[in-house]
């Protein structure tokens, strides 16, 4: 096992160095002042308390969607509706904020239950459809994301946009419903504790429970699972429901943790970013916070770079994709891997 961990660490480091080399080359080519751009990208996030707060604040939603995608990928399913679920978690926060009037604590409990349910339904739908009809979950979940986005915008525009407002946004959320801030001078909120709690919960689920065992076995060989009497479709559906619930909660928590009102661009692709978090964390819940932090750091750095230099932040999307690709490339370091895996093997009689 240790050898495997070593291989994975080397793989990650090599992938990151290649990706960053590409990044540096591109920035150098197009920027008038590449050093400043790179400085802002890599060191901007730690240049002030507020900036670092931004990193943590972005880490929170990424932990939720990273966990969701990790869970779904572990079962070898490529349902990508976490994006839609995350967005609709935010929509649920919007709806509840302006429709119920209860004490804060009760509100948050209701919010978590409702956003989890709605998220579960959204991610569960492509899963259910695949189960019943064998429709490809990749395509159906991507279509569903577009539909959910439009539906959310409709709800916002037709029910929660103040008539006199020209911007497509809701009125300000009631103060008592906002997630409490935990670090003054930043927007880091209580959701951080919820995210860490979710990490521990999902870790236990995956590695210490019967359902987790079934999820992992199904993900690694669904034929085997079926032959052994594991109800594969049920396991897959449950995985997607749990993943969707996580993404939904993430969206709700993020919306009330960071913003004062709701606009239709409240998820700048955190559901999609869940993919890179999951890939970096190798679908292991315990590594998700670290991976989420890394991605949040990059995103914050990119935003600072855009503000202070002439390099658009979108370059970071390209770099993220390249990191994903390099990590999932099994042959990238096959020679190094070969050496590590067979080291010691030849000595203890491999050749006899």
């Amino acid at each position, binding site marked *: 096992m240790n050898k495997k961990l070593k291989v994975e660490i080397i793989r990650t480091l090599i992938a990151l160095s290649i990706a960053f080399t590409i990044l540096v080359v591109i920035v150098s080519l197009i920027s008038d002042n590449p050093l400043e751009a790179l400085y802002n990208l890599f060191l901007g996030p730690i240049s002030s308390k507020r900036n670092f707060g931004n990193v943590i604040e972005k880490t929170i939603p990424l932990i939720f969607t990273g966990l969701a995608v990790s869970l779904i990928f572990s079962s070898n399913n490529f349902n990508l509706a976490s994006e839609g679920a995350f967005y609709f978690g935010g929509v649920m926060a919007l709806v509840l904020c302006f429709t119920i009037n209860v004490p804060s604590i009760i509100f948050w409990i209701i919010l978590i239950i409702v956003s989890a349910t709605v998220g579960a339904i959204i991610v569960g739908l492509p899963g259910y459809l695949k189960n019943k009809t064998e429709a490809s979950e990749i395509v159906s979940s*991507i279509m569903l994301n577009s539909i959910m986005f439009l539906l959310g915008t409709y709800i916002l525009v037709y029910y929660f946009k103040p008539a006199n407002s020209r911007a497509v946004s809701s009125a300000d959320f009631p103060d008592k419903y906002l997630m409490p801030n935990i670090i003054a001078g930043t927007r880091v909120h209580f959701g951080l504790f919820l995210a860490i709690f979710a990490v521990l919960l999902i870790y236990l689920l995956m590695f210490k429970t019967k359902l987790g065992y079934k999820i992992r076995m199904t993900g690694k060989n669904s034929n085997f699972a079926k032959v052994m009497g594991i109800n594969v479709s049920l396991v897959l559906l449950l995985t997607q429901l749990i993943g969707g619930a996580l993404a939904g909660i993430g969206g709700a928590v993020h919306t009330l943790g960071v913003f004062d009102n709701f606009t239709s661009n409240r998820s700048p692709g955190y559901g999609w970013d869940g993919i890179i978090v999951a890939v970096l964390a190798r679908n292991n819940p315990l590594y998700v916070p670290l991976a989420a932090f890394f991605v949040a750091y990059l995103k914050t750095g990119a935003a600072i770079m855009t503000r202070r230099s002439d390099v658009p932040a979108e370059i970071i999307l390209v770099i993220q994709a390249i990191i994903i690709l390099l990590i999932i490339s099994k042959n990238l370091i096959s020679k190094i891997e070969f050496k590590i895996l067979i080291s010691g093997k030849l000595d203890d009689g491999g050749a006899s």
Partner: protein
Amino acid sequence: MDNLINLFLSADFWFTVIKLTTPILLATMGAHIALRAGVINIGLEGIMLVGAFTGVIVSGKLFLLGVPIPINLLISVIAIIVSGMLGGFFIGFFHLKLNSDIGITGLAYNMVASGLTVFLLFVFVGDKGASYTYKSLAFPTIEIPLIKSIPFIGEIISGQNLLVYIAFLSVIIMTFVMKKTVFGLRIRATGENPKAVQSVGISVKKVQMTALLISGGLAALGGAFLSMGFVEYFVPEMTAGRGFIALTANTMGGTPVGGMLVTLLFGFANALSISLQLFSTIPIQFISMLPYLLTLIALVFFSWRKMKRNVK
């Protein structure tokens, strides 16, 4: 209701249906050849987007340089196809050479495309929103003699963009190549039993890479129709899921001709959603949903039917 009937009776509407079928149709042919060779090209969406972007930038640059229009368009077409083939190569390189999962590889390419097009749009045009301020070209429309003068039908078929005819022609070519050529035989064999193909000395990876290159070229042309036919500018994410719709159309259609029929359905939905925006009181969000909803429903219905057939 009257509006709707009038709409369906107007040649204009059906002209738009054909027009909107075109980008999806080209991408569907791209999906077809790749899938036949045993690789599902999830990256079609990104390839289309890059194709749309390349067309605008290249034709615009050449225009600024004062290159005569026909030569400009010729070079642009080549650039567009090359951009698509590069996308296919990119996916093939990671999947075939570095052994990465094809699904995530395709998705990753889509991310590359989203990021890169906005990034480069800013670099070339100085705007992340769209290329309105940047003069780029469109492909010419073509009047077909004789057919042109047939009432109604002529109005629908003639006078379309050059790429429209290329798209429908590609269906015939694809059918022929798959059925009647050595190349097609090898593609089909590779998709069905790659080990058998390898055992007779054909390089499976080469066949699959070739298929991906062709797939990319076709999809990029489809994408370019959006920015050089349907409109004459580039907007980020302007492909709006058409790559995925093409994947669905291909699985549903099965054959090139079948795929074409399904894409016509999607073209219809697209055209309908555009027309409805003009005169209906349905909220715009629901109208915009139409193509996605239709894809989802069609996919589910088709998969369900196929499963039923398999079970029997």
